[in-house]
């Protein structure tokens, strides 16, 4: 959407693919991956498509840098001239309100970064793999208070894709299918005029996942306690806290303590962001978050493969609109 996207037409031409019977270029950011998978599943379900490749491909580091690139929007004049011009700053504004509402401190954000860095150390795809202690975290300089660099994802050049097809066809493939059991999207009231307009969003300490929680679990016919692990969108650290709480996976204001107690680690109650998250693996808009969920469900999680990996909740999106999926190992 910032001129950083490979179009369906272009990718099709580049792959030398046969005629497409379905294509969709979603002009979204990090709220899209779970939803793009959902749209693909709808196309398969209606018979419009047999197999849909859902991808994100961008030169996010050598090309347009989303962290600092401006874009034309009706609300830009209320932000840019005063020096409020970048995503890290916008989400820091929500992060601060989350801290005010829940009493979470800087250490609470640090817990997210530290827990995910542990997973990243054994993920060869991760770009940030150095061990991280709370002391290291608190010593790091602010990028935009309350965020230090450890609270922010890394811009990377990369690509990532998942294949969506019918369950019948999937069962003929080499790997156990990850079945889409539930899906939800929401653009709640107050979502504003563009992806950085949150003037009318009532509570900056909760994001879209709070709004589609009930629809998600209803569509999956499951409860939050039914999932074995979670892959929560994390362009910035507090988004993990909002996502865990939003889907009801932990209680309101409890996410940082839950992480500090080790519950999102490999042996915890709810292993979360088992690839190290976008914080460590880099920013492919969370398509890599969906891919990690699929790999784990299939049992292809490498050194980070979880023991219990039958059911997973996945989210996409940090602020107003967003989406989520529940995946289940076939025949689990």
């Amino acid at each position, binding site marked *: 959407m910032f001129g950083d996207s490979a179009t369906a037409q272009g990718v099709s031409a580049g792959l030398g693919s046969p005629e497409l019977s379905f294509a969709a270029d979603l002009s979204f950011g990090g709220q899209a991956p779970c939803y793009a998978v959902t749209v693909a599943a709808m196309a398969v379900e209606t018979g419009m498509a047999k197999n849909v490749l859902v991808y994100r491909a961008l030169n996010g580091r050598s090309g*347009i840098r989303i962290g600092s690139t*401006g874009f*034309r929007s009706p609300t830009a004049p209320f932000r840019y001239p005063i*020096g*409020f011009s970048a995503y890290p*700053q916008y989400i820091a504004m929500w992060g601060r309100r989350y801290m*005010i509402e829940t009493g979470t401190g800087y250490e609470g954000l640090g817990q997210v970064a530290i827990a995910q860095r542990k997973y990243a150390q054994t993920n060869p795809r991760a770009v940030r793999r150095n061990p991280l202690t709370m002391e290291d975290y608190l010593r790091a300089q602010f990028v935009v208070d309350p965020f230090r660099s450890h609270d922010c994802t890394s811009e990377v050049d990369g690509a990532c894709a998942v294949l969506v097809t019918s369950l019948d066809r999937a069962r003929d493939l080499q790997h156990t299918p990850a079945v889409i059991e539930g899906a939800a999207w929401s653009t709640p009231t107050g979502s504003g005029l563009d992806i950085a307009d949150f003037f009318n969003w009532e509570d900056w300490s909760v994001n879209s996942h709070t709004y589609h929680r009930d629809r998600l679990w209803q569509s999956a016919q499951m409860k939050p306690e039914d999932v074995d692990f979670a892959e929560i969108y994390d362009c910035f650290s507090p988004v993990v806290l909002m996502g865990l709480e939003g889907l009801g996976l932990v209680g309101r204001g409890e996410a940082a303590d839950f992480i500090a107690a080790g519950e999102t680690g490999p042996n915890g109650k709810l292993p979360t962001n088992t690839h190290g998250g976008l914080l460590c693996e880099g920013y492919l808009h969370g398509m890599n978050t969906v891919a990690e969920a699929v790999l784990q469900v299939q049992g292809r999680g490498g050194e980070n493969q979880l023991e219990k990996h039958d059911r997973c909740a996945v989210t996409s999106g940090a602020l107003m609109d967003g989406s989520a999926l529940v995946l289940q190992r076939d025949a689990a």
Partner: protein
Amino acid sequence: MTEVGTVQETTEQLQKVYVEPETDLDTRWWFEALEQDRLEIPRCNACGRTFFPPQPDCPHCGAQDWRPIPAGGRGRIYSWVVCYLPFDPRFAEEVPYAILAVELEEGVRLFGRWKGDLDAIRADLRVQALVYRVDGHALLGWEAA
């Protein structure tokens, strides 16, 4: 968007264009009022509620019937950030600076530059709007009330 040579140039071009208040038919009046040191906000004639930013329809009820009302400029800090890394090179000389999100007494939230001591910022602090100018453009700022 305009295509300009390499992607690097595109990024620079975007930054250059959008740091000035680039207003349109919906937002120009607000900046014109600010130029005359008046803080105004739109209020819906149909449902009576205030809203921000200015836009053709009331986001509460959808009516295309609103008018600007004068705002007192008094409010409380809802949230804030302190910017250390200048994502936009134009602000490199100004870091660190704080951006406040303030809940106005009239019921809307507004962003503005904090003109006080960084250490004095806290949630719910009472603040007062002020107008400051950069390159002749009137912009919204805040000071302690």
